């Protein structure tokens, strides 16, 4: 029941934002949005809400706080890839890291963050929750350990993912 309500409310908010045109919404617009949101809520409630762990406001605050180090890393690493594009100096390789996360949401968040920060691209995930990451400039020191150290690949993202979604 709560899954259905949460999905419907989320759909309705997105509808309101998308149909916003600078004035108040017309009544027929709101009605159509409500009907479609309820329909979407019925169909998608089990997909959108698996459990209620993420409903905790503390996790949302952590997520908002996470955006700042994320965008800093993203800007820094983008300049790095820009340098590699111009000079062509690359040392690619696929490395294995074990972030030690279990929940699906945390792993999705970590994999997407890794992909969005340039220089690393998550390729695959095995049964033991180890991530395989394509790294455009493999560090010499990182190859000595197995699995590879998490720090140079994903900065502090695994800790943030644990705080937000584990």
């Amino acid at each position: 029941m709560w899954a259905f309500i949460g999905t419907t409310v989320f759909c309705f908010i997105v509808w309101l934002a998308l149909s916003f045109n600078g004035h108040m919404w017309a009544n027929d617009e709101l009605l159509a949005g409500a009907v479609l949101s309820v329909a979407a809520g019925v169909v998608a409630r089990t997909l959108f809400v698996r459990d209620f762990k993420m409903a905790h406001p503390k996790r949302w605050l952590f997520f908002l706080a996470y955006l700042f180090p994320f965008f800093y890393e993203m800007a820094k690493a983008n300049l790095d890839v820009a340098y590699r594009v111009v000079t062509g100096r690359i040392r690619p390789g696929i490395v294995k890291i074990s972030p030690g996360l279990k929940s699906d949401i945390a792993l999705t968040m970590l994999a997407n963050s890794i992909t969005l920060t340039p220089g690393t691209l998550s390729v695959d995930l095995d049964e033991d929750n180890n991530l395989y990451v394509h790294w455009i400039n493999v560090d010499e020191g990182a190859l000595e350990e197995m699995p590879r150290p998490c720090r140079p690949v994903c900065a502090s993202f695994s800790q943030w993912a644990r705080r937000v979604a584990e």
Partner: protein
Amino acid sequence: MMEWVLYACLAIGLLFNFLAVVGLLRFPDVYTRLHAGTKCATFGSIFLSLAVILYGLWRFYDGNEAMAALSVHAFIALVALLLTNPTGAHAIARAAHRSGVVPLQAVVDDLEEHNQQSMPTSQEEKNVE
């Protein structure tokens, strides 16, 4: 003053999108091209969307109410882009590796080793059956 902030955002966005194109042409194989094609493009698009959002807010501040919709819609497009772009890149990279595309110039390939370790056991299981 505001125009120059917008021009700066547009310039940074276009610069990174341009670098993405250069990277696509320059890099040797599918994985490294994905690096350039997804990330620089995402970063560039963030700045292009930011320019649209700021323009909408600026016009809204001047009293043109309909322009606030521009900001809201550009922001939703930006969120959708940030969610779907890495997912798509991940799907392409995984599909490429599964269909046997070898990363060129690679110094290490842990995923290939992992697959080779797990492949023989699955075949043995089939033989037993």
